[in-house]
């Protein structure tokens, strides 16, 4: 098996760099001269939609060598199923990693959608099953089920999905779902079942991952913490006598030719960060264990200097102040970022979901400059710590 490297598509617009707060791509901020997809022609809407930009990103990443892309799901962003269906025929190799919370869809219908998407794409559907979240966002979706119960529901959901996918008649009588004589039509059932990337840091999540995950997916965390997380999953598998899943990490990168150029880009964005607002990002709402872990790592960090949020060489915890999304990412030269990714491979990572702002331009950059530098698991040397790696 080779190592799969995915990119991400921003489902809620994008901006031209981390330097500015405003989104110029998509219609999440005011559409004005210079806006793209939709834009203005002679003062009138140009007829493009945000999907046109998503297509640009997907095709750029396809050409840059990425295996596919994560289509995330948030209350205020476009929907991954809709985007995947629309982009299915406009891409050739791009795999659609669809993020969704199982509770929001009926599992039998989800199986039908997935199987037809497999047929539309030649088997390019991948699931990113998310169960965490919680708090007001969970209620926004209309979901009141408590944290650990959500994992139980996810497990049932996936049991039903597989059950009907195997044909029928399929019966299921669970706490959350009940099916009598279910089953996909033969043409749909013949499709390969999508790979499952499964997220969640809590014991309930790790238990559910053990049963369902092809890949256990984590945000980037400080490497020693990430290793502990992977070890907990491996231990759980050993205890239950199941083969451990593979491991995947979702990593933001800011890679430039030199360390100096990378940090210069961070600092230009940092000039726009409001310190008071920044303070709030350490105190997240919700019952997601992953989010709580992030806050723990960064509590006490100074917000005066971006380099103060560096937790280990190249691992920076301030990304969420410059764009929506996870806090940690890699900052540095192409070579340095490649070395850190190789270090993650050394920890057992089998797949990456990389991302950078802006997603279009950076797909080319990362594909052309960083990925060819990756050495992979067999040729790892001990990571070096050159003096230049300190944040400047």
């Amino acid at each position, binding site marked *: 098996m*080779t190592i799969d490297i995915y990119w991400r598509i921003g489902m809620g617009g994008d901006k031209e760099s981390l330097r500015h707060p405003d989104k110029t791509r998509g219609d999440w901020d005011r559409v004005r001269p210079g806006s793209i997809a939709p834009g203005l022609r002679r003062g009138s809407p140009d007829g493009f939609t945000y999907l046109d930009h998503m297509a640009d990103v997907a095709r750029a990443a396809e050409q840059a060598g990425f295996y596919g892309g994560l289509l995330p799901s948030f209350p205020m962003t476009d929907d991954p199923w809709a985007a995947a269906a629309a982009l299915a025929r406009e891409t050739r190799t791009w795999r659609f990693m669809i993020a969704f919370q199982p509770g929001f869809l009926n599992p039998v219908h989800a199986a039908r959608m997935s199987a037809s998407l497999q047929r539309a794409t030649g088997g390019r559907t991948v699931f990113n099953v998310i169960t965490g979240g919680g708090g007001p966002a969970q209620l926004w979706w209309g979901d009141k089920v408590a944290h650990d119960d959500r994992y139980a529901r996810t497990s049932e959901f996936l049991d039903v999905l597989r059950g009907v996918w195997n044909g029928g008649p399929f019966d299921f009588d669970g706490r959350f779902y009940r099916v009598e004589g279910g089953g996909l039509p033969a043409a749909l059932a013949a499709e390969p079942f999508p790979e499952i990337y499964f997220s969640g840091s809590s014991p309930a999540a790790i238990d559910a991952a053990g049963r369902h995950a092809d890949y256990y997916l984590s945000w980037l965390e400080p490497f020693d913490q990430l290793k502990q997380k992977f070890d907990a999953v491996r231990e759980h598998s050993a205890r239950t006598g199941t083969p451990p899943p593979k491991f995947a990490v979702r990593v933001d990168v800011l890679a430039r030719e030199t360390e100096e150029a990378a940090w210069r880009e961070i600092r230009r964005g940092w000039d726009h960060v409001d310190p008071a607002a920044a303070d709030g990002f350490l105190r997240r709402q919700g019952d997601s264990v992953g989010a709580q872990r992030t806050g723990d790592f960064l509590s006490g960090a100074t917000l005066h200097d971006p380099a103060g949020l560096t937790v280990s060489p190249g691992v920076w915890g301030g990304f969420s102040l410059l764009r929506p999304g996870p806090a940690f990412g890699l900052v540095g030269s192409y070579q340095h970022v490649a070395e850190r990714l190789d270090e993650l491979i050394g920890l057992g990572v089998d797949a990456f979901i990389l991302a950078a702002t802006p997603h279009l331009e950076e797909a080319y950059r990362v594909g052309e400059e960083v990925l060819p530098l990756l*050495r992979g698991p067999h040729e790892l040397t001990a990571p070096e710590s050159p003096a230049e790696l300190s944040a400047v």
Partner: protein
Amino acid sequence: MSRLPAAFHWTVPVRGDGREADPGRRPRGGWNPGARREFRPVFTDPRPGNVGPFDHLSAIGRAADVAGFDGVTVPFDPDGEDSWITAGTLLRETLWLRVGVEFPPAFATPVYAAKLSVSLQRFTGARLDWHLAVDIDPARRRALGDHVDGDDRYARADEFLTVARGVWHEKEFTYEGRFHHVLEGGFFGPLSGVPFPRVHLTGTGDAALALSARHADVHVFGLDDDLAEHTDRLRQAGRERGTDIALGLRVPVLARADAAEAADDLARHQAEAGRAAGPGAEPTGLVGSYDDIAARLAEYRDAYGITQFFLAAHPAVEEAYRIGEHLLPRLHAARTPAEASL
């Protein structure tokens, strides 16, 4: 033709594209074997057999389209991708762009060039433009099977355009020239009544300017040309024939958020290109902040009446987005009220 509103066109690189300053090291489009650095085999690479050179050309066209350009130009390059096939694919995959195909008149008979073009016009809402490449290096021309030299090249281009327009607009068009002839030619049925491609011509010699006086919808200059003298002559020619000759300018740009960043990138490009300086080196063009470059282009408009700008930069997708987000809004804001209403 009535006066053309200001328009900004992007340039499609037909012999490779990428971030590198040295054109010979650019990995996209498949023109520089070895320039693309491969992944080690342990990493999944879905591209072989799936992603081809035209995927990148399409990406450029689509980027220019969403970024708000008015058109793209596909240069004629005997050592690059064919401009007609490239233009055909880009026309189909874009919504708004005019697509200018550059080609030498020796490429085909004028009847056939018109026939090919009338179909492209029908397929694409009449978004095709012609850019005639008359002044091609003699050795190049002979290698392309063309042995017409000197001012004869312009005489032949004159006949070429006369015949192409003749069969396009008339039913029984007969012509007997030195280079081309046709007997009772003309397009019928759905092939008639289609707008003729806008004709773009170049050059600063007498023969070139005389050809434009007769045939050009747009005459395109370079930054180094003597604009004051030549633009006057073409304006006068336009008045004499009763239709404007729009004036265009080819402008390579290196536009950045501020002048210092532009200067840094210029220095980096020059240092990189220095490794392989020589033929193929690209003109520098205008370098500066978005505000600077918008002001410089407005000067060309105000001083010389230039309305058609043919911008170029690499890498072509990323720079199309950059210019769409930063430069085009400034340029449109700087349009005269009369233009803004068009």
